[in-house]
């Protein structure tokens, strides 16, 4: 709090008004946050008074902790914003007459008289860059003047943003519509636990500012679409594709071609990664390489196929490197080449790929893509997949071939003779499974049908003669898609009354037993 009140009093300079402007929103906020704290203390007191020392007190403390953490991150964000604003003002002052109470004495900032425009602070901050003969003052100056847009603040975007902020890219844009979740933390290292539930762009911007308060970070908390892509991307020199789906990759590529921007493209799933630079210096674009989109079944996602956290980390670091090389005009960007990374074998392969294709429908010389064509193009239809992917929800079966998890719970309670087949892969089954379920992965269903027959027979034998018509087969999977495929097959193979459990284990966890972990 003392930081907040001290800042506007720090100096009587020409920028005082600007500072006051920047601080204005924070004063009402402080008032409300103090009131908030008072209420949480009151709640806590009441809990103690009623002698409830168990869950009540714990939840009051938790609430108070959450409130305080929220206040803390808000104050940190405001400090970063003020520091960035201050730096910006300092840069605009030709004589560097601005001084910051919390910083060492007055610094001459621009036009240091050394033949470049790096301030003493910048020289010190980026000294290790400046010491590189092949990078030096020239490379750093270019970097400081550059602007880079990172689309996606996830596994790839995290290291990209951290390194670009640290290295001093003048203006860094970040686009993401998503919020931080617990299952992001193992790979999306820019986010911290205190930001769970909050927008990724907010979290990412705060992290970038805490590393380097002297750069400008622009937040776009929205999905990138054909309607906003041209406007957003046109403001940047270089675009980094750190997204996680095919339609976004085609859309970002096409927009880069239309606007003439180089594109640093990276991807990582499982234990492999790929990296290349498109639309750079007459090199190919994404469509030159992949004119036809792949079938949707070939587009694995991290949330289905899994990913070792460090793999997108490696590719993201390399994307940051390529972006820095292009921005500072140093080295050979990875154009017309592709880097293939195989984490398990530790192998990195650098392959030569085709050049720009004259037949390319987007960058080809014959008919280059126009802005209007771009805005009218339907990327979701082209790739048969959504730009902001949600878990797939198939509907393959008749309603009477399906039951929901509450209905299945009733069957369990009533003791109905049945066999529960779990068709997830074995390694999923090992994470969590329902008691008494029989694991037969969908891919092995055909070969292992006899196991279902014998399990049914066993149930019948246990029950004696009262179930002459044969026991019931229920099928479960993770989300309720594969279970439908399995039931379709089982019904064809004579298990006519087989039913799937709607929503799978996730549905069960939400509707019946919240203690069953989801993944």
């Amino acid at each position, binding site marked *: 709090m003392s930081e907040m009140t001290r800042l506007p009093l720090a100096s009587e300079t020409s920028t005082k008004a600007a500072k006051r402007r920047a601080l204005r929103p924070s004063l009402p906020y402080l008032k409300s946050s103090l009131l908030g704290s008072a209420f949480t203390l009151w709640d806590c007191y009441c809990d103690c008074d009623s002698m409830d020392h168990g869950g009540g007190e714990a939840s009051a403390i938790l609430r108070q902790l959450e409130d305080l953490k929220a206040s803390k991150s808000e104050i940190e964000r405001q400090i970063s914003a003020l520091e960035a604003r201050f730096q910006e003002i300092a840069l605009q002052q030709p004589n560097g007459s601005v001084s910051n109470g919390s910083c060492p004495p007055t610094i001459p900032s621009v036009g240091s008289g050394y033949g470049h425009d790096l301030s003493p602070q910048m020289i010190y901050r980026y000294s290790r860059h400046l010491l590189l003969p092949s990078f030096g003052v020239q490379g750093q100056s270019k970097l400081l003047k550059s602007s880079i847009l990172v689309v*996606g603040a*996830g*596994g*790839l*975007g995290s290291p990209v943003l951290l390194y670009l902020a640290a290295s001093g890219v003048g203006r860094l844009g970040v686009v993401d519509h998503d919020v931080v979740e617990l299952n992001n933390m193992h790979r999306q290292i820019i986010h911290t636990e205190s930001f769970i539930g909050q927008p990724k762009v907010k979290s990412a911007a705060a992290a970038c500012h805490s590393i380097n308060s002297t750069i400008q970070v622009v937040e776009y908390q929205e999905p990138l679409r054909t309607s906003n892509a041209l406007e957003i991307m046109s403001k940047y020199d270089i675009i980094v594709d*750190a*997204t*996680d*789906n*095919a339609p976004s*990759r085609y859309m970002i590529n096409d927009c880069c071609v239309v606007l003439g921007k180089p594109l640093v493209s*990276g*991807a*990582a*799933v*499982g234990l*492999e*990664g*790929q990296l290349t630079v498109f639309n750079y210096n007459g090199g190919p674009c994404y469509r030159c*390489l*992949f*004119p*036809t*989109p*792949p*079938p949707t*079944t*070939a*587009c*694995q*996602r*991290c949330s289905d*196929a899994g*990913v070792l956290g460090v793999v*997108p980390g490696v*590719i993201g670091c390399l994307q940051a490197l390529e972006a820095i090389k292009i921005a500072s005009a140093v080295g050979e960007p990875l154009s017309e080449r*592709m880097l*293939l990374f*195989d984490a398990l*074998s530790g192998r990195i*392969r*650098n*392959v*030569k*790929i*085709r050049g720009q294709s004259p037949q390319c429908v987007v960058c080809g010389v014959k008919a280059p893509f126009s802005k209007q064509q771009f805005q009218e193009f339907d990327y979701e239809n082209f790739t048969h997949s959504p730009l902001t992917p949600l878990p797939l929800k198939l509907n393959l079966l008749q309603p009477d071939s399906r039951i929901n998890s509450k209905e299945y719970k009733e069957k369990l309670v009533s003791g109905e003779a049945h066999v529960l087949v779990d068709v997830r892969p074995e390694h999923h089954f090992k994470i969590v499974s329902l008691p008494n379920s029989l694991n037969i992965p969908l*891919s092995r269903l055909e070969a292992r049908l006899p196991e279902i027959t014998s399990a049914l027979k066993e149930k019948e034998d246990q029950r004696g003669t009262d179930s002459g018509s044969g026991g019931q087969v229920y099928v479960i999977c993770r989300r309720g898609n594969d279970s439908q495929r399995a039931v379709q097959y089982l019904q064809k193979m004579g298990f006519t009354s087989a039913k799937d459990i709607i929503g799978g284990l996730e549905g069960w966890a939400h509707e019946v037993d919240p203690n069953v972990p989801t993944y």
Partner: protein
Amino acid sequence: MLQFLWNFDHELHFYSVCKLCSFYNMQLTLEFGGGLELLCNSVKIHNVNVELQNGAEKLTMKDLLSWIRTNLIKERPEMFMKGDTVRPGVLALVNDCDWELSGQLDTTLEEKDVVVFISTLHGG
């Protein structure tokens, strides 16, 4: 390759013998990545001997693809091929070079070549 063989007696001998019985095995290293290995028992690297068809003097990528489809792909061949070529989204590389640069399906393979098939990734 021919020139190479002429330089070594034993290689010459081997080649001659095979010439007589008009078939010949070509040793190749095949690699599958980006998820394509799942179609071949999750094995990424395959050292194979591809038998040339009777009378054939060379092995092209077209021949190799049909050989792979018959001998290596264990499931969902449509995830590897479409028609007589690789499906969209698969990059084929001959000795670390995009097959577009060497003639695509008409690329002629040579002994000890390394052919890589990579499915493009989209995740992040």
